[in-house]
C-alpha cells in the first residue's frame, strides 16, 4: 500500500503551464520530500496527487490503480495542511473522528482509534477542547491525528511546520519522523526548507519552475548535485559557485565548493580575501569573505570557534577532492 506513480502529468492555470510534463515514482513506505523555492510548483504537485487540483493531462496512479479522475475522498490519502485546517466548530475529538464519521465507521471503533491517536500524540487531556483553545503545536498534532485514524495509503504534508516557532518545529520534525518509522506508510512532504528536506527524507525531489531538477537521497544530492541549481539549493550555508578563469583551470565553466570544504589560514593559501561578517555559532563559525576576485562573497564554515575580525586578511584553500565541476549549461561534469 502506498506507491504513487505520476506519468507525464502536466498542470496549467489558464495559459500558464506551472508543471510541464513530469514523471515521478514514489515507492511504498518512502518518505519523499518535495523541496524548492517558493512558486516552484511543489504544493501544486502535492495538490494534484491529493486530487484537490485536476491534472491538465497525464496520469496519476495510486497502488497501481488509475486515480487521475478520482475525487480526493476516494484516493485514500490523508493531508496535513500548513494552516492545520481544523474544523473550528468541532472539539478535538470530533475533528479526529470526522474522517471516520464520513467513512461511516461504527462508534466503538471510532472511540478506540481516537483514544489510540490521542495517546500517541499527547492529546488525551485536550479531546474536549476546541481548536481555538490549543497552541500551534497541539493544533498540528490534532491535524496529524485526524490523518492517522484514516489509515491512509499515504500521508501528504503541505509545509506543516512553517507556522510553528523554531524550537517547536524541530520537535515536530522528530515526531513526524518517528511516526513514519512506526507506521511505515508512504509520506510526501512539501517544504521550502532544505534542512527539513535533508533531515527527514528518504528521497528528495528538488523542483524548480515545475521541473524536477533531481531526485535522490539527501546524501546523493549533497555529494553529487546534478546541476548548479541543486548544488546551490541543497546544503547550508550555500555552496560557493565560482565562474571564469579559476573554473577554467579545472576544465569547467563553473566550479562549486561547499563552505565546509574550505580550509582557512591567516598566512597562506590558494585564494586571498578580506573578512566581512563572521557568524559565531559556538560549534561552527561562518565567515563571509569579500574581495577574493572570484565571486561577490564567499562563505566558509569552520568547525569550532576562530578569531576573525572584520577587515582581516584571510587565505582560503579548497579541498581538492571536494570541488564540484559544472559545464556551461550548468550540468555536473562527472
Amino acid at each position: 500500500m502506498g506507491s504513487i506513480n505520476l506519468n507525464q502529468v502536466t498542470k496549467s492555470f489558464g495559459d500558464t503551464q506551472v508543471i510541464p510534463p513530469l514523471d515521478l515514482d514514489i515507492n511504498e513506505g518512502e518518505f519523499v520530500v518535495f523541496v524548492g523555492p517558493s512558486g516552484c510548483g511543489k504544493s501544486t504537485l502535492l495538490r494534484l496527487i491529493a486530487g484537490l487540483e485536476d491534472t491538465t493531462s497525464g496520469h496519476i496512479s495510486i497502488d497501481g490503480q488509475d486515480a487521475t479522475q478520482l475525487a480526493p475522498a476516494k484516493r485514500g490519502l490523508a493531508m496535513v495542511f500548513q494552516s492545520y485546517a481544523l474544523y473550528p466548530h468541532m472539539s478535538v475529538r470530533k475533528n479526529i473522528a470526522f474522517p471516520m464519521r464520513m467513512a461511516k465507521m461504527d462508534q466503538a471503533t471510532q472511540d478506540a482509534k481516537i483514544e489510540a491517536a490521542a495517546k500517541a500524540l499527547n492529546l488525551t487531556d485536550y479531546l474536549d477542547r476546541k481548536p481555538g483553545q490549543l497552541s500551534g503545536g497541539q493544533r498540528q498534532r490534532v491535524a496529524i491525528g485526524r490523518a492517522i485514524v484514516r489509515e491512509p495509503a499515504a500521508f501528504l504534508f503541505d509545509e506543516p511546520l512553517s507556522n510553528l516557532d523554531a524550537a517547536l518545529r524541530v520537535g515536530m520534525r522528530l515526531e513526524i519522523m518517528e511516526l513514519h518509522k512506526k507506521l511505515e506508510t508512504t509520506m510526501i512532504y512539501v517544504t521550502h526548507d532544505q534542512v527539513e528536506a535533508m533531515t527527514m527524507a528518504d528521497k528528495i525531489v528538488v523542483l524548480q519552475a515545475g521541473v524536477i531538477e533531481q531526485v535522490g537521497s539527501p546524501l546523493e544530492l549533497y555529494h553529487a548535485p546534478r546541476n548548479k541549481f541543486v548544488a546551490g539549493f541543497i546544503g547550508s550555508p550555500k555552496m560557493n559557485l565560482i565562474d571564469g578563469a579559476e573554473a577554467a583551470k579545472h576544465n569547467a565553466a563553473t566550479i562549486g565548493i561547499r563552505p565546509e570544504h574550505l580550509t582557512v589560514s591567516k598566512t597562506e593559501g590558494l585564494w586571498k580575501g578580506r573578512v566581512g561578517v563572521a557568524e559565531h555559532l559556538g560549534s561552527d563559525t561562518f565567515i563571509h569573505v569579500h574581495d577574493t576576485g572570484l565571486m561577490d562573497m564567499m562563505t566558509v564554515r569552520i568547525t569550532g570557534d576562530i578569531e576573525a575580525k572584520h577587515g582581516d586578511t584571510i587565505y582560503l584553500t579548497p579541498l581538492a577532492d571536494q570541488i564540484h565541476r559544472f559545464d556551461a549549461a550548468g550540468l555536473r561534469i562527472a
Partner: protein
Amino acid sequence: MARAITTKQKLIWTVLAWTFGLLMFFPILWTFLTSFKTEAAAISDPPVWLFFDWTFENYTAVQERSNYPKALMNSIIIAVGSTFLGILIAVPAAWSMAFVPGKRTKDILLWMLSTKMLPAVGVLYPLVLLAKWLGVMDSRILLIVVLMLINLPIIVWMLYTYFKEIPGEILEASRMDGADLRAEILYVLTPMALPGIASTVLLNIILAWNEAFWTILLTTVNAAPLTAFIASFSAPEGLFYAKLSAASMMAIAPILVMGWFSQKQLVRGLTFGAVK
C-alpha cells in the same frame, strides 16, 4: 497614533448623533403618539404633543374593522418562508461563487445585484399575468416565491461575503477526509458560517416583512400581510390618521421587537461582514 479627542469635540459629536438619531426615530414616535389620539386631535393644527386625551379607541376600531391575526400570520409565513427558501437556494449558490469561482462569477454577482436596480413596477404586468395564468393570485405561496426572488440577490451577496471569510483549506480538508459535497456544506461550511447565516436570515425577514409594493398589489384578502393591512386604512373614503397610525404600530411592533433583540447580528448583517 491615537487621535486626541477633546471634550468639546466629544460634546459636539454626541449632540449631533443624538439629533440625527432622534430625527430618524421621530416618524415612529409620531405614529406612536398619533395612534393614541382621537381623529380630531390627530389632525389638529398646531399639533398636540403629549397633552391630549389618551385613548385606545383606534386600536379597538382597527381590531373590529379588520382581521389583524390573519394579517399577522400571513406576514410571518411570508417573511419566514421567503427567507428560508432563499437561504436554501443561496447557500449552494454562494458556496460555488466563493470557493469554485469561474471566469464569470464576478459578472454574475454584479448582474444579480443590478436586478435590484430595476424598478419593480417594470415587471409587475408580466408577473401578474403569470400569477393569474398559474391561478396563484392572492396566495401565500406566490408571495413567498416573489419575495424570495426579490431578496435573493441580497441573500446571495451576504452569504458570499461571509463564505469568503472561511479559509478554503478547511473545506479542502473535509474533502480529503472523505466528505462529499452535501457533507461538506452541511457539516463544515454551514456551522462555520452560522453567525453570517443568522444575520442574513434576520435582515431578510425584516426586508420581506416590510415589503409593501408586491404584497399590496398581489394580494386582496387571503394572503394579505400586515403591509396590506396598513394600506387598507388609508382608504379612499377619507384619511383616518389615528387609525392608520394604530394599524401601523400593530404591524411594525413584532419586527421592532425582533430587531431590538437581534441588534448585534443585524449590525453585522448590514455591514456585510465588514466588521467582526
